[in-house]
């Protein structure tokens, strides 16, 4: 975990899987890759992905609309597109708000 402090990358997730599941590192790496790949594939097919206890990844279709370039005032058309939205589960929200190491409570 010789990465920039405060940033977790794929290799760190692989290490966690390796430590907790008893895989070899290459099995752990493969498992992490396959998981991410399957989520991407489902989203690519147009399916929402809902991981109970974590979050949902939802696709939202946006219609074309007219807008203006805020700098030049020039009218432009924004193409219809599909964007990904992320909705954290209650469990995830609770985890990020437990703040055990934070010193920002009053007093």
């Amino acid at each position, binding site marked *: 975990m010789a990465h920039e402090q*405060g940033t*977790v990358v794929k290799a*760190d997730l692989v290490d966690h*899987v390796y430590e907790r599941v008893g895989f070899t590192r290459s099995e752990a790496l493969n498992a992490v890759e396959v998981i991410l790949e*399957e989520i*991407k594939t489902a989203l690519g097919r147009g399916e929402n992905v809902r991981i*109970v206890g974590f979050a949902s990844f939802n696709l939202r279709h946006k219609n074309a609309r007219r807008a203006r370039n805020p700098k030049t005032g020039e009218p432009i058309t924004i193409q219809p597109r599909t964007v990904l939205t992320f909705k954290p589960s209650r469990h995830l929200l609770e*985890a990020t708000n437990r703040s055990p190491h934070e010193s920002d409570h009053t007093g």
Partner: protein
Amino acid sequence: MTKAELVEKVSQQINLTKKQTEVVVNTVFQSITESLAQGKKVELRGFGSFRVRSRNARVGRNPKSGARVEVPAKKVPFFQAGKELRELVDGNEFDEEIEMEMD
């Protein structure tokens, strides 16, 4: 796709039982959750990044009664899809033809 469906697909590819695969899948999401809870960001190349944003406390209103309510400060996890994933997702056309062209 639900978590159970994800587990099923992954188990077929890594040749583990569904039960074993579920442990792996849970470990991955638990690990992301713990990292975010510690205030770390999680960057997964080819997928996207997870971060936590702080929202200040504010005074909101109950939309029904109009009563003022204190909304406490909170930390909201969010996800930004990587370029590859954004483009992949935008390739779905939802049975609609996109025939507008630029220029």
